[in-house]
């Protein structure tokens, strides 16, 4: 073959290589420079940049009295934000400090002012959330009035922030919260809009008012309940906001006994017990059950649900281990010993999306079973463990069930 024949492909290869390499270099150079520019930009935005608003920077150095701080020029601020000028971290701190120094009526007026300024929904939303947080702390009634026009709108975060804020207010100042709520009901703001005639929103607010009002005036709570349509009274106890204040437990029990059908009473008590777990753990719930004199059957239902709920909470926070399980078992032994093993097994079920992994759960069960030899422990655990990936190990564990009939049933369910 003549050497000249190699020339065209060699030249083509060289040309293509040069072209591709030069393109690749250009891409890398652009990406590298872009990255650097963005890093500088981020640094500027998070720092006290040259475009800082002097009034905001000044605010940072002053004390927190409104009179000593320059008023916020909302128009200028909106103009800056509309042009894509993000606030620096320092500017944000200064702005928030200024907002903290404002009174309730000043915040209310500022909310009205920014509502009509041209800015993006996101910028307005962020400013509004800062203002509303402070308004809620300083002047809850103004905050409630401000939110009232969104009372029946279930879109956005205000749909849960507003009722939560009412609950907090009612816990701290039940008399003021009750007066405000009663005025709104009289004005027809909580009228049912649904075809079924269900007072969904009013029931939600009534349930959130109940713990605070019950602590100062149980008779007033009764009057409020009887003002509701008869078929909706029991629903008040199914809303899940029974954060009882110390000393209200017996009044609450009387209400449940009077207004909730017998079969649903354990569920109402469980709801209260769950909130107590957040306040004082198992001990508080145990004392509650002793104080309200529940029947053994009610105690079994409430204790089982409360124990499972507590383990679920611990699991969500990534802390489920042998120590947490032993603590729960000790408490269940005092409350409802017959249910202790089953509850333990069920609470360790692997649902496939949380830590710890199945192997660690299995190890806890095996260690406990080595001590107790309980069939109920294994059945509780295996009955819920139906994930295919766990099947083999589950079948090995199922072989340890002593009762032949129960073992066969579990093996059958695992083999499906």
């Amino acid at each position, binding site marked *: 073959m003549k050497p000249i024949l190699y020339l065209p492909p060699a030249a083509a290869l060289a040309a293509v290589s040069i072209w591709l390499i030069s393109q690749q270099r250009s891409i890398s150079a652009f990406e590298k420079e872009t990255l650097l520019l963005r890093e500088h930009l981020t640094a500027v935005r998070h720092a006290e940049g040259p475009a800082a608003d002097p009034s905001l920077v000044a605010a940072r150095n002053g004390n927190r009295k409104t009179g000593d701080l320059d008023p916020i020029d909302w128009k200028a601020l909106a103009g800056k934000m509309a042009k894509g000028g993000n606030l620096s971290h320092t500017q944000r701190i200064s702005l928030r400090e200024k907002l903290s120094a404002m009174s309730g009526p000043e915040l209310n007026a500022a909310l009205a002012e920014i509502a009509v300024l041209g800015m993006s929904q996101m910028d307005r939303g962020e400013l509004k959330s800062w203002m509303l947080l402070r308004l809620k702390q300083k002047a809850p009634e103004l905050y409630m009035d401000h939110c009232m026009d969104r009372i029946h709108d279930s879109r956005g975060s205000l749909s849960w922030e507003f009722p939560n804020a009412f609950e907090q207010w009612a816990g701290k100042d039940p008399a003021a919260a009750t007066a405000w709520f009663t005025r709104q009901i009289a004005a027809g703001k909580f009228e049912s809009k649904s075809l079924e005639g269900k007072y969904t929103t009013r029931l939600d607010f009534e349930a959130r008012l109940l713990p605070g009002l019950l602590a100062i005036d149980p008779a007033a709570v009764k009057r409020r309940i009887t003002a509701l349509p008869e078929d909706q009274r029991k629903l008040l106890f199914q809303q899940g906001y029974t954060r009882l204040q110390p000393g209200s437990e017996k009044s609450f029990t009387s209400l449940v006994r009077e207004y909730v059908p017998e079969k649903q009473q354990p569920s109402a008590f469980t709801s209260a017990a769950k909130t107590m777990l957040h306040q004082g753990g198992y001990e508080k719930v145990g004392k509650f059950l002793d104080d309200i004199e529940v029947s053994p059957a009610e105690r079994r239902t409430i204790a089982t649900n409360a124990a499972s709920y507590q383990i679920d909470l611990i699991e969500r926070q990534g*802390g489920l281990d042998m120590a947490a399980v032993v603590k729960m078992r000790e408490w269940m032994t005092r409350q409802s010993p017959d249910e202790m093993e089953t509850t333990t097994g069920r609470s360790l079920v692997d649902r496939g999306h949380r830590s710890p992994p199945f192997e660690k759960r299995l190890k806890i069960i095996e260690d406990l079973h080595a001590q107790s030899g309980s069939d109920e422990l294994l059945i509780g655990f295996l009955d819920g463990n139906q994930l295919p990936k766990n099947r083999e190990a589950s079948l090995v564990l199922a072989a340890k069930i002593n009762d032949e009939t129960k073992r066969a049933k579990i093996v059958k369910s695992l083999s499906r």
Partner: protein
Amino acid sequence: MKASLALSLILLALGGFFGWRQHERLKLARETHHRAEAEVRASGLSPESLATFGKQPFSTRRDREDTASKTTTAKALAGELISWKSVAAGSDTDRAEELMDQLLDLNPNQIKTVIAEIQASTEIDNLARKHLTELSLNGLSWNHPQAALELLIESSDVAKMTPLDQHIISNSLQKWAGENPLGALNWFRKHGENHPELITDRTKAAVIAGIATQDPKQALSLIGEMKLENKDTLASSVAFAVSTPDEYTALLTALRDFEKNDAEFVKKTLGGLAYRLAYQDFEATKTWLSSAKLSDQEIRSFSEGLSYSCTQADTGHWIDWLADKLPADQFSKKVGKSVWEWTEADYKAAGEWMNGSADGPSKEAAVWGYAGALASHQPESAAQWALTLPEGKERDKLLKGVHAAWKKKDPAAAAGFALEHRLGN
């Protein structure tokens, strides 16, 4: 010689193919660079002086400030967090909000101090320690997403991430990618190699959605590379990431270019955008929509995202807007369902709209939903509305439905109604 020339041509063709593909990447990199330059200029800085010399980002005045007082502030806040958590396990949610608000004002070094104090505290147990650390990182993620990610990776076992940890990672990635797409992307790629647990559909969606606020075209170009198992979350993340009319327009333009790559994703994102826009002021949204000039196909995809759960009090406005834009059968189904749900939730408002709207296809479609929802509660009124429809199969079907519901409530009245309209039993 022929073989030699043929080989040369093949080489040139292959080079041309790969060159063309690289050219697209180069074009994108150049555009992204131009945009970054423009942003730097808009901030009053010179891109040349920053990029040419490869300097690291500025040290700030804040960095030079008295670190001692900042440390004191951080320690004080850590003390408050610990005491909040140790009293009734942090059940005072009002106080929690105040503390979270204060966390937003801290810089990364201060948050490090807060976390160190929490870790060293003997007043709380391991679970409370973990929870407070997460809350501190969550506060940091809002203003310093990169720092939050670095700290989280340093201080946590990635394999045992809690739901809150996962939220912090996604939130940080999305925010950071919105500020610095390449920085976030490089971090994600680099750490993904060592921590495959970080690479989930959720985190991928967060990175892409963050970039979409800056550069939707670049964001969409990453979808193929990222290999998501399920793109539904991505579609809604991207649609909810954009927040201004300019950003909606940029996203729409990018989606139009992307149609040929993944029409299903484009359809879902348009539906997600509709859901997102329905939350906002209707008139402003209408103005943007008229400027967007959606094609018939785009309107069909967009309307998929509209339902009573997002339109609520604006349901009537949206029906009017859709009236001349959707094919008749799709429009009727959409309106019937929306009005049914609206009537169940707020029958007075739905009724006012029904009474105020002009006769025509919109109203006929709405009668289906309105009378259908009323039937179980107010059958007589439902029957009157059903009778406003033109005679035919559709009306007969609705009348039979109303009659069935009426029979359960008042059999005698229902029988009279059936007789009058020859509906049988």
